[in-house]
């Protein structure tokens, strides 16, 4: 009995000590975890990307790949539009970037003179500027990672030719870019290479519709207007941006024109991929967004190391159809 009492007492003592140790350990860990802030990683350089359309999957992918590549090169890539709560214009972002003395700017220029001047100002302030997708050759930018307008026009033409039949009368190309020079090249290239002979009596008309407005949602309204006018519905609709392609997907369903109008879009967002699978749109011209981001950062790094870089880097264009999607899925 006495021994049993002794063991019980020892047991309670040990339990008490154990509890106290656990409590102390837990309380210290608690304090540390409560005030623990993640130690930030510092980078040597800060780059900014200025590209309107922070909701666009295209630019999101470009940014992601760019950021990944930047980290490998001891740099941090910031997307100005994404990180800002104010709705600044491209000029404002350029001014902010220049004032912030960033180490490099990647911009998707809108072709305006103001932006061009700001690119030049940045260069004067020893901030290298690289243009993405579209170029501003008149500016002092150091390089362009872009889509060759001629190549793009050719690709579109090839794709359009797939859907031109003897009943095809009208091909509408939607222009949503402020950079009219680029658009002109693409459109002209398309026009030159579309085989009009297939259509009846060669009366295939290829027109460009400028839906780029002053306001944010003007392009979407413009696309809807195309479908409202029943009499002038195109047989083939060509979109040159991912936003236009998605808007066109929605509009063709809303206006019940699936099967009546062939759509050739731009960029493979999830919506577009889905639409291709369902046959709502026929195909999409897809630039390799990973390549854009990666090549941009590599060019900037090369410039920063060597003081010069290649003037232009072309990005691969792919054509995505239902078959290619199925093929990729099976693999």
């Amino acid at each position, binding site marked *: 009995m006495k021994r049993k009492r*002794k063991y019980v*007492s020892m047991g*309670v*003592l040990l339990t*008490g*000590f154990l*509890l*106290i140790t656990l*409590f*102390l350990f*837990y*309380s210290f860990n*608690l*304090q540390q975890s*409560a*005030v623990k802030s*993640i130690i*930030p*990683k*510092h*980078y*040597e*350089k*800060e780059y900014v990307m200025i590209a309107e359309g922070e909701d666009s999957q295209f630019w999101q992918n470009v940014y992601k790949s760019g950021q990944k590549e930047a*980290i490998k090169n001891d*740099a*941090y890539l*910031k997307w100005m539009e994404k*990180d*800002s*709560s*104010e709705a600044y214009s491209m000029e*404002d972002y350029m*001014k*902010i970037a*220049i*004032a*912030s*003395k960033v*180490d490099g700017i990647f911009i998707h220029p809108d072709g305006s003179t103001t932006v061009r001047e700001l690119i030049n100002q940045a260069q004067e302030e020893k901030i290298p500027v690289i243009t993405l997708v579209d170029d501003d050759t008149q500016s002092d930018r150091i390089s362009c990672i872009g889509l060759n307008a001629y190549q793009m026009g050719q690709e579109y033409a090839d794709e359009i030719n797939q859907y031109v039949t003897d009943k095809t009368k009208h091909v509408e190309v939607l222009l949503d870019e402020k950079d009219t020079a680029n658009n002109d090249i693409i459109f002209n290239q398309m026009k030159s290479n579309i085989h009009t002979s297939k259509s009846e009596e060669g009366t295939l008309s290829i027109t460009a519709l400028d839906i780029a407005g002053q306001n944010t949602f003007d392009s979407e309204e413009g696309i809807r207007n195309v479908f409202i006018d029943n009499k002038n519905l195109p047989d083939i609709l060509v979109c040159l941006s991912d936003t236009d392609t998605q808007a066109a997907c929605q509009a063709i369903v809303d206006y019940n024109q699936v099967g009546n109008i062939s759509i050739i879009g731009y960029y493979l967002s999830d919506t577009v991929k889905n639409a291709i699978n369902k046959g709502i749109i026929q195909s999409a011209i897809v630039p390799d967004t990973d390549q854009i981001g990666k090549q941009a950062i590599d060019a900037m790094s090369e410039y920063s190391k060597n003081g010069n870089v290649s003037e232009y880097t072309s990005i691969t264009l792919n054509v995505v159809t239902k078959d290619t999607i199925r093929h990729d899925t099976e693999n």
Partner: protein
Amino acid sequence: MKNLLSKFGNLSIQTKLTTLFLCIALNIFAMDIFVCFKVNNSIYEINQVYSSNVDTNQLNDTLNEMQSNLFDYLSTRSSSALESYYGSEEKYNDYVLELNDSATDNEVLNLERDIHYMSQTYIESADKTIQEKRGGDIEKYKTLYEKTNQTKQYITENINNLNNLHFKQNAMQYTILLGELKRIEWISFGIVLSAAAISLIFIYMFTGNLIAPLIRLSESARKVAGGDFSVQIEIPSSKDEIASVTVAFNRMIISIREYIGQIKLNMEKEKEMQERELLMETHLKDAQLKYLQAQINPHFLFNSLNAGVQLAEMEDAEKTCLFLERMADFFRYNVRKMEEETTLGEEVEAVDNYIYIMNVRFSGEIQYERKVDNSLFAAKVPSMILQPLVENALNYGIHDIEWEKKISLEVKCRKNTIILTVADNGVGMTKERIREVLRGKAKEKTNEKDSTGIGIDNVKSRLELYYKRENLLLIESDGMNKGTKITIYIPLTGGEKQDVSNTFGR
């Protein structure tokens, strides 16, 4: 460790208890300190939570102040405005220098970096504006002011963003810290409770160890009080006061046991000596008796006395006849061996015969009062216990008095005790004399002619031997000439016949 425990065990109880309570107090004090520290720490951190917002607001205020001073100077060109501008510029610069200036993957730090460099651009631009103002180039300073103003707007926007981010983070941090404070409260409660439990266990174990020897000691003391002297307590390993008491107690028990043994031995020896003395007295009496008997053949005496009785009857000498009969009876009774037991009735008869004989000799001077309970006559008693007392009363009490001689004999029973009382109205006895008689120190003249030779102390000793008790005989006297009363108390159930002679192999 064992050494330490042993040393601790050898400390005094006061030291041990003081040490224990000191340890407990320190334990509780330490826990309290810990709890206070943790809580204070948490409160301090909570207070610090919104300090980043305060700093950011100060940055914004200073920027506004700087812009305002710039505007004042450009508007008024006063030296005080310029001085204020430089003052606020320096202050603003100090704040800016504290901001992060490198690219990171942290949104807050990146904002700080942007603010840092934009502020530098702003300050450069503002300085240039002032220079142009002082230089008098209106267009240039106006353009520069616009640029400065716009940069200031960008900075303000970024500061607001930073403030919001800080606020969000701080709100989260505040909630986390509040939660942590709550958890720390519970943890502290748990720790204090555990510490209290540990302290209680320590106290329980320690006091248990301390008190265990005391409990054993008290248990043993209780046994000893109950008469069990065979207990022996295990001596504790410590050398404190309890160990000392335990050792002393053990020694005391051993001493008591030895003392008891010694007393028993002494009592046995004393008893043996008493028995031997009694036996010797008996032998002496026996020898005397034998001597007498050798002188006078008892049968011849009885027969002669009987012949005398018959002769007296024949001569119608009734008184003589009665006297001789009484004599014969008396002598017959007197020569019995003292180791024989007899009945109370025979004892009373012997007294009656003796008084009769003495009264004849003393011409009826002796007033004999007899109050006896006949129902007790069958009780077994040692022989020759009453007659010696009566003889004593006669020879020493009333023999030489000048007033009426009285002797009384009372036999009664009270609560299973037979009370035999022999009283006289003689010269009485002093207390000293009573003591001497009872101790057997009084020298009795046993060789006197009128004595049967059996003293009071003999009667007392034989009674004690027979009944195996003491204090069976009581002598009372109120003093000189106040008479004497001797009382014998004997149990109604009887005693044990003592064959004293056989003890000595007679």
